[in-house]
């Protein structure tokens, strides 16, 4: 048991950090709440260090096989903790001196712990718990920094979450009933003899729930509203962290369902639906946060394409993990730029951005072109290897769909870029900047996505 606890140290550290931040915050005077941010960051750094120390190639099942520590878990831990640090940096400016400052930090940490639990769980019951642990902080985060749109966004997220949570539990119960076991290791063996229609129904229901977390079609309705209505740091969180946990959880789930190719095709179809619907909807958006919200729906599509072939291609697993890391960095860079210019909401507001904030504009260029998949950024390598893996696994149509969708996505990312490069109509008045945290996060993340693309080789070897 002691060894098991050590094995989940990163998750435990995040959870503990969340508790300390929450309790400590209520004993801290309002003007000094920032120190809770430092506590949260320290806990996250500790989590990151623990993840790196615990990194090992050997797969290890702990807590009677309900949680698995392997390369996927290790990579997810590093991605999530690094992302959390960036999000805390973004949040530090945005929620500073807000009455809910320390609560925000603790919710971010709880959500991160939930996502990690989701990614590592190899038991239906733990999956359900992880779903709840990662969902409930989400509902809070969307509404905690109140704006006019926040209550609606929070309610929508909550209702969607409740519905898809029920579907997930229904599916889990169904699979449990068919197999008589909840652990994934025994599911694989037991389900081969079960009626395939019932297995398919159970699998699809659990998948639905996870797709809500991932923000992919058909569980995507809440994403654009939540990104628009929530604070930018919350939006950055909900489009990054839960997705990572959910996508990894999806790969673990389909690995134990019988019929590799069939599930690959199902995921492939869902991937195409996500990327296409996300892209088409993003085309018409005028609010950059809403645009980014839809953009993440389409990005989930590409990630799902990689997830589809983790079972049937050697390249699938490293491609997915690489893509997840690249996506997290690039997406956070884009949100950090948005957080650094909180007054610029619609595309027109971005005129003159390039001349007044050249450094941040460079970060925006890297982020948006990165999301398109322009080399040498990390997402390019992610997309390239995903295309290679899907094509190699016999799903060439999926590779072509990724390329076609990248073309469509170009149109709206470029709209934003074009708006930012336009000269301003009149001289800018001193607009609020959202503190120094967000610009720093933007520059760091943008630099990291290029660096990761250029050093793709070593990174790949670690993930493979």
């Amino acid at each position, binding site marked *: 048991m002691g060894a098991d606890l050590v094995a989940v140290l990163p998750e435990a550290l995040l959870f503990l950090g969340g508790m300390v931040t929450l309790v400590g915050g209520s004993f801290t005077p309002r003007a000094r709440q920032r120190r809770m941010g430092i506590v949260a960051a320290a806990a996250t750094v500790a989590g990151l260090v623990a993840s790196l120390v615990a990194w090992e190639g050997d797969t290890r099942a702990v807590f009677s096989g309900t949680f698995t520590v392997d390369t996927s878990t290790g990579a997810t831990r590093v991605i999530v903790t690094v992302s959390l640090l960036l999000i805390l940096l973004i949040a530090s400016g945005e929620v500073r001196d807000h009455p809910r400052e320390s609560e925000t930090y603790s919710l971010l940490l709880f959500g991160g712990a939930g996502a990690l639990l989701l990614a590592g769980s190899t038991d239906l019951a733990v999956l359900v718990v992880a779903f709840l642990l990662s969902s409930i902080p989400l509902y809070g985060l969307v509404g905690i920094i109140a704006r006019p749109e926040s209550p609606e966004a929070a309610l929508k997220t909550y209702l969607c979450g409740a519905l898809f949570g029920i579907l997930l539990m229904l599916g889990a119960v169904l699979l449990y009933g068919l197999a008589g076991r909840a652990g994934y290791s025994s599911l694989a063996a037991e389900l081969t003899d079960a009626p395939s229609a019932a297995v398919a129904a159970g699998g699809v229901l659990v998948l639905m729930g996870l797709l809500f977390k991932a923000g992919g079609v058909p569980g995507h309705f809440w994403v654009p509203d939540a990104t628009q209505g929530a604070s930018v740091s919350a939006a950055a969180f909900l489009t990054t962290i839960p997705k990572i946990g959910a996508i990894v959880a999806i790969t673990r789930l389909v690995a134990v369902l019988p019929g590799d190719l069939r599930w690959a095709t199902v995921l492939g179809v869902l991937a195409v639906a996500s990327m296409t619907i996300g892209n088409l909807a993003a085309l018409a958006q005028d609010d950059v946060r809403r645009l980014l919200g839809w953009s993440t729906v389409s990005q989930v599509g590409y990630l799902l394409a990689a997830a589809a072939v983790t079972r049937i291609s050697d390249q699938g697993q490293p491609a997915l993990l690489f893509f997840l890391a690249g996506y997290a960095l690039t997406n956070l860079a884009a949100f950090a730029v948005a957080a650094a210019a909180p007054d610029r909401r619609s595309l027109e507001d971005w005129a003159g951005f390039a001349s007044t904030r050249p450094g941040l504009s460079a970060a925006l260029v890297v982020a948006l*072109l990165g999301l398109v998949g322009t080399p040498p950024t990390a997402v*390019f390598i992610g997309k390239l*290897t995903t295309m*290679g893996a899907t094509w190699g696994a016999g799903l060439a149509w999926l590779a072509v769909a990724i390329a*076609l969708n990248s073309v469509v996505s170009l*149109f709206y990312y470029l709209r934003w870029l074009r708006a930012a490069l336009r000269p301003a109509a009149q001289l800018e008045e001193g607009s609020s900047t959202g503190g120094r945290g967000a610009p720093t996060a933007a520059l760091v993340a943008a630099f990291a996505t290029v660096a990761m693309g250029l050093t*793709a080789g070593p990174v*790949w070897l670690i993930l493979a």
Partner: protein
Amino acid sequence: MNVLSVLVFLPLVAAAVLLVPRISAAGARGVFVVVTAAELALAGLVWARYQTPAAGELAAEEQTRWIPGVGSSYHVGVDGLSLPLVLMTTLVFLACAVHAVREQRRPRLQAALFLFLEAVCLGLFVSADLILFFVFFDLSIVGMYFSISGWGHENAARSAVKFFLYTFLGSLALLVGFVGLYVASDPHTFDMVELTAHPPLQGHGVAGGLVLAAVLLGLAVKTPTFPFHTWLPPAHSDAPAIGSAVLAGVMLKMGTYGFVRIAMPMLPDAWRAWAWVVIAVGIVSVLWGALVGFAQTDLKRMIAYTSVNHMGYVVLAVGAAGVLADGADQARQVAVTGAVTQMVSHGLLTAALFLLAGSMFERTETYDLDGYGGLAGTAPRYATLFTVAAFGSLGLPALSGFIAEFQIFAGSIATVPVTAVAVLGILITAALFLRALQRVFTGPTAGLSVGFTDVTPREWVPVALLLAVSVFIGVLPRTLLDVIEPGAAVLADLVGR
């Protein structure tokens, strides 16, 4: 570090240094000229040390691990098909740097951007790995986008976006093709030397055709050939002078270079099967570019359409090289040699023409051909340079264009007689240049020609440099052809296998 790597990374480092805001405008311009001159010297060094490599090998080769997991490495090298383009690229960029020494709009950033572009262009021509090639291919689009949108005029923002969308779309098709090649190769690799040695889709008719279609689409947009050329005229007419010179002089070659470096040797039987389509596209591009160019009254648009025409000759030649006729091996080789020569020649001449067009715009803010008259009287140096460049472009003997077009037609007509139709294109191009010269330079001084000051040294020196090289090639073609021919022979063999 390999000399080719220095060639690629030196301008990149210089560009990064220039991003430091405290560097003065004059300092930035100086760095721009000095670095591009050093690049020319380096390329000259590579040329001087160049020994024709054995078939299937590259000279000045360097290979280091990059992404071993997906069979991609940092692999560079040159041969007879790429080395002339490398030298031409450094020449064009030096000319641009000299032309830009009086740039008033954000010279520091412009110098950084163009040095970045130079690195990218050179990187593409020395790449021996498909992913490396694609990285440079895509970055060139990004760089040119900022050049047009940041330093262009009139509808610059709109043209820049159109350029970006169009060529980026093409690049994604190209990427699909590359992934197809990768998936079909065994063991999986993106290495161009490997893929050339063991073409992966031989005998897979449909799959090979589809992969070739994706590659061709990507290259056709970049080249550009009819019907994918519509992004070119607006991009040119709204781009700054040195942007146009780089775009037409260097970046259009990325498309045609892709034909000879990737499409032909890596998909030989698919190429042979589709050669007739390529030939047809080439012929249409030649005629369409010439005819539409003939109808233009805007100088830059006219030059842009002649680019469609000139690139059409290249497409025609590489198409003809895919048709195996009895005893035509020599002819196919001549056609490829002509195609590569044309890439070099067009780079020099079009860059010169666009720089001259830029000088015109600086004085009068218009490219309208009808607004001038008798310009030879007020600006004789300008008129001389323009006339030489125009004659070179229409294929007058003693200039590089003649050498190129002569070989293209000698090789193509011998293999595929019907390509003789495209000779009409030369006639129309000659007519359009002569008419333009007549409208602008001859007759009594009128309209905008009044008070048109003649070109200053920083304007005529770079153009004269480009034209001098064109004349050199025209008079002593063997210097260039000796380098190209062995590479062309290897390529003709590869397509024939």
